[in-house]
């Protein structure tokens, strides 16, 4: 049962490794978006520190959104997805592996890079740890929820814009709890509640999203 999970994970990771430019584009996008805000708003360190949590979280959200079509689009185009779907193993397990591979290749580099950008925004060391921790706990939920949108928009016209309309409203709770954790740490408050809620969001989406993604794929591919 778990063999198929690791087989798909390994395959997707290998495919991503052969095209490192794609993952790098997402990381660059994150860096560029995050560095636009000081230019547009105000480079004053006090002001920057104030909106750092929100801006960095929104930048991660957009970078994640940008990479979402990659979860299924390539396999859809070259027909591999059809072959995957006729496998006897449960489809929800396979899509979970694909989403995990997407998170590892597209989102984890951004999460690892986020403390660096936090430093540019003048966050203190505690704030940097909370930022990275909240992203580490929150971004898997983004990948799981985004997988539903990515599966549903596979055959649809205007996929990219449609995907953001579908997925961004669902991202709002994660954004609130994640950015809220960093804001709370800056204000000297405890962050445990925010982390608990992020964890709850992750667990809920971990249980339900693979099933929804599998159902969506079956509808789109029928």
């Amino acid at each position, binding site marked *: 049962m778990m063999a198929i999970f690791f087989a798909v994970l390994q395959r997707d990771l290998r495919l991503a490794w052969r095209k490192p430019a794609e993952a790098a584009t997402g990381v660059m996008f994150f860096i560029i978006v995050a560095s636009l805000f000081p230019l547009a708003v105000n480079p004053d360190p006090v002001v920057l520190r104030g909106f750092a949590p929100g801006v960095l979280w929104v930048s991660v959200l957009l970078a994640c959104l940008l990479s979402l079509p990659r979860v299924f689009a390539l396999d859809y185009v070259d027909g591999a997805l059809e072959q995957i779907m006729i496998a006897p193993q449960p489809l929800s397990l396979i899509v979970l592996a694909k989403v995990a591979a997407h998170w590892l290749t597209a989102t984890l580099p951004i999460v690892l890079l986020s403390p660096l950008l936090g430093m540019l925004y003048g966050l203190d060391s505690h704030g940097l740890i909370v930022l990275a921790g909240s992203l580490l706990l929150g971004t898997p939920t983004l990948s799981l929820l985004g997988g539903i949108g990515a599966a549903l928009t596979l055959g649809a*016209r205007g996929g990219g814009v449609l995907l953001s309309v579908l997925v961004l409203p669902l991202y709002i709770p994660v954004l609130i709890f994640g950015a809220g954790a960093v804001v709370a740490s800056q204000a000297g408050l405890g962050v445990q509640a925010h982390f608990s809620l992020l964890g709850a969001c992750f667990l809920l989406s971990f249980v339900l999203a693979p099933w929804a993604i599998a159902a*969506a794929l079956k509808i789109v591919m029928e």
Partner: protein
Amino acid sequence: MTGINWFKYAAPQTFFHLSGKWIPVLGWIAFFLAIAGLYIGFFIAPTDFQQGEAYRIIFIHVPAAWMSMVIYLAMAFWAAIGLVFNTRLSAMMALALAPTGALFTALALITGSFWGKPTWGTWWVWDARLTSELILLFLYVGFIALHASIDNPQRADRAAAIIAIVGALNVPIIYFSVQWWNTLHQGASINVASAPKMAVTMLIGMLVMTLASWAYSVAVALFRVRCIILERERHAAWVNDLKEVKS
């Protein structure tokens, strides 16, 4: 109960004729209730001590806000039924409800800002209710946009059903997250829940308007379902036998 065939009206053909009978009835009910409700609201209900005449927008605002949520749940319900039992009519119902729900959501937001300007002194505050209502509008738009972008109607129905169900599960999470975010920020100090007690005539006016909104929503949704049925069943023999189609 065993004598009734519940599935009789699940067939588009029989439902088309049934809904055709109900639309004028519900439409007239909505019309007269709206006239009565607006009359009570604008002429009989007393002027509010604190808010003056501006409060009278609640006779439209509150029913619209209620309908926006009820219709989303109804839409998700029909979408789920359509997905599980693969009934054609349920998916059509979900599709027919979506524009009305989006309309009421937009109406609630617009009338809310009309009320906010004289009462709070601003068109918009990032209050929990306002924000979650705005997100509800996004969810409606997502459902409609996804349905519109898939050409095959059956596939569009089922794909949109999934996003409707995911949205319905998310609505409480979104609502509470926005509420906690709001209390954390302490931004808007206005508490909507602590509004003064309402006079009885105000309550009656609001309830009459709510009933009018219900009747209107059902009538319009049925009307839209009839259009969708005609569009999708245009190759069926019974549609071509309709006297409206023949003439």
